[in-house]
């Protein structure tokens, strides 16, 4: 990977026709990511040799950090995809600027999520068994299929969303133009008819994608947990719905944060109106999410079932409760809601950026609190309790996988017309 950035530069010098100018900040960013990826990569390779002994997992707590990250990234993906449908299906043009980025983020997040699943398998080399020997009563097997269909759909949709830009770019002599020439047909044109056709397909794919993302991908991921009657804290019908809503929260927050950071780094003007309204949307989802969670905890507590009470106690009143109170509640809810509603900060782009970043971190906490506490409490009181905290190796593998995702995203943005220039906004995607 380290050579890739160099390669690109060399290409630009040898083939002087294609001119690539990588900004300094981009180079620093890529080098930092590459270093993170290489360090993480070492631990990923090591993990394949040692197996799951590299983790702190046990037969009592068989799922941990990697599963938490897996559902976190599935959530980000579903969330950012659903946000993109607001634009392409429901015609909310005010969010136009993040449309293609949303689709591309959704794809990369799925790749990261599936990589986390792969890390977590005891026998990663047999992963295809879940497709070959599909067990129709297993939500997990269904999910694997849904994920693949979903990634395919996202890819097609992104391609159509970029088509006009690709055709335009193919005529230029930039790196993007070079890539665009590779993936567009020679006779591709833009006219009123193709515009209409593209627009129609965006709408169709987006519409098919909505149930796929809600019911299949993210609701389905929630279902993986909700069907487990052995763990009362998961076994509620509300659980998949909370998954979808929290996906919307994290997806919106991620896109908002990415948009602001990118514009800041590139020193381009920020569309403040859009930022403020996206932030409102994000907090709106968050409040619904909190409401659902409240009922979830209340009803679980009221049921007085021992395991359920133990799970709630593990989450909210054990030495690991900081991840609930500080990460999930304070950072992930109280502070961002305050920022978005407080007069002094509600129009401030920097403050809203902080709110978005805090929400993304908060949702990581939510995901850990979903996975770990119900698996710390044993299924019989007499059995030993779990005691799980990720090992350094688990963290490093996670760093490597996330760095991989960010590298894919960065190179994607470098090579594909993901970002829109403001003059294109008006006639694109509509």
């Amino acid at each position: 990977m380290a050579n890739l950035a160099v390669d690109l530069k060399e290409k630009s010098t040898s083939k002087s026709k294609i001119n690539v100018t990588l900004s300094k900040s981009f180079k620093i960013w890529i080098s930092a990511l590459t270093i993170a990826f290489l360090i993480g990569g070492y631990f990923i390779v090591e993990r394949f040799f040692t197996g799951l002994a590299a983790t702190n997992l046990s037969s009592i707590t068989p799922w941990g950090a990697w599963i938490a990250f897996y559902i976190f990234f599935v959530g980000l993906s579903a969330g950012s995809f659903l946000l993109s449908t607001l634009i392409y299906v429901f015609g909310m043009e005010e969010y136009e600027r993040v449309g293609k980025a949303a689709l591309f983020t959704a794809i990369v997040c799925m790749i990261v999520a599936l990589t986390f699943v792969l890390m977590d398998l005891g026998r990663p080399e047999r992963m295809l068994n879940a497709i070959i020997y599909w067990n129709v009563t297993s939500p997990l097997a269904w999910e694997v299929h849904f994920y693949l269909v979903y990634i395919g759909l996202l890819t097609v949709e992104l391609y159509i969303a970029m088509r006009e830009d690709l055709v335009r770019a193919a005529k230029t002599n930039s790196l993007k133009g070079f890539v665009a020439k590779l993936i567009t047909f020679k006779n591709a044109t833009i006219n009123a008819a193709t515009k209409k056709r593209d627009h129609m397909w965006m709408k169709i794919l987006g519409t098919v994608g909505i149930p796929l993302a809600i019911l299949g991908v993210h609701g389905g991921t929630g279902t993986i947990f909700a069907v487990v009657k052995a763990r009362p804290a998961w076994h509620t019908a509300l659980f998949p719905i909370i998954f979808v809503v929290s996906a919307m929260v994290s997806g919106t927050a991620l896109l908002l944060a990415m948009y602001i950071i990118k514009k800041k780094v590139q020193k381009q003007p920020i569309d403040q109106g859009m930022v403020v309204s996206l932030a409102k949307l994000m907090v709106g989802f968050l409040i619904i999410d909190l409401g659902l969670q409240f009922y979830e905890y209340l009803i679980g507590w009221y049921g007085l079932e021992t395991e359920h009470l133990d799970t709630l106690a593990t989450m909210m009143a054990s030495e690991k409760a900081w991840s609930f109170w500080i990460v999930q509640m304070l950072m992930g809810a109280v502070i961002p809601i305050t920022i978005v509603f407080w007069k002094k900060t509600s129009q401030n782009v920097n403050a809203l950026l902080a709110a978005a970043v805090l929400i993304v971190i908060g949702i990581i906490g939510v995901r850990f609190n979903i996975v770990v506490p119900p698996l710390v409490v044993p299924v019989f009181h007499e059995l030993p309790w779990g005691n799980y905290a990720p090992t350094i190796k688990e963290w490093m593998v996670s760093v490597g996988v996330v760095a991989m995702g960010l590298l894919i995203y960065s190179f994607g943005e470098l090579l594909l017309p993901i970002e829109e220039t403001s003059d294109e906004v008006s006639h694109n995607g509509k």
Partner: protein
Amino acid sequence: MGLFSNEKKVDYDKIVDKMLPDAKKEMDESQYDTELGLNMARDARKVISGKLKIEDFHKVYSSSLTKEFGNYYASGDGPDIRKGDGPKWAMVIDLKKCVGCDTCTVSCKAENRTPPGISYNVVMESLEGEFPNIKAVNLPRPCMQCDKPACAQVCPTRATYKMENGIVAIDNDRCIGCRYCIVACPYGARSFDFGESYEQEMQGANDVTSPEYGVERGNREKGKTPIGTVRKCSFCFHRLQRGEEPACVETCIGDARFFGDLNDPNSVVSKLAASPRAFRLKEELGTHPNVIYLR
């Protein structure tokens, strides 16, 4: 180990072969068709090893057998093979007899050669009531071999499945190690094989393994199946195949465990299962365990 290390290994099979009569010569001496006899013997071995279905065997030989034996051979379509008519294995554990000595746990580990951190059977001990009115409850917990197993329901690959004899089996060669089944089992009966070994404490510990489900896998080695997959009690399926009871039943010092066929109304387990003392764990979950307790 060192016994044969310097010499060539003695081939016991060869010694046995020498003792066997020559099949062709024996058949020639009999009044029946030599070739038919030899072919049938060859295919019968295939049936035993599972490579040939018994129905197919009958189909192939039915006509030539009628020719050879005439009226003596009158089986028609072959034997009546009824489905679901075999045994349905079940275990009854009498909690009044259990003294909490953990012999079952130890004998299970010895029988199944389970690595550190994995016990197919545990005895959950608790004290009920307040001193001086207390009662010790010892609750042995193997896999319940549920009729509606939550583990098989969620397994994405069908590596976990219910056999006709009632035992819930794991195909360790198919399992991808996702551990969904461990999460889903309401009885905590499943363990993941992280690859640990007793080799440190006991030399040669890896050389002896147990033929779980009748599959002999040889030495325990890094990365070799079942490492990286999920394991659990199989009612000692390999012992049942030899006509022996599960190790925990055989070794129980209080004679608290009974094993048998629930499809046979006259078996001890059927009778005990009908007793008013009988109950199952977490019955409200609808998993319908085949391990029945007597309170």
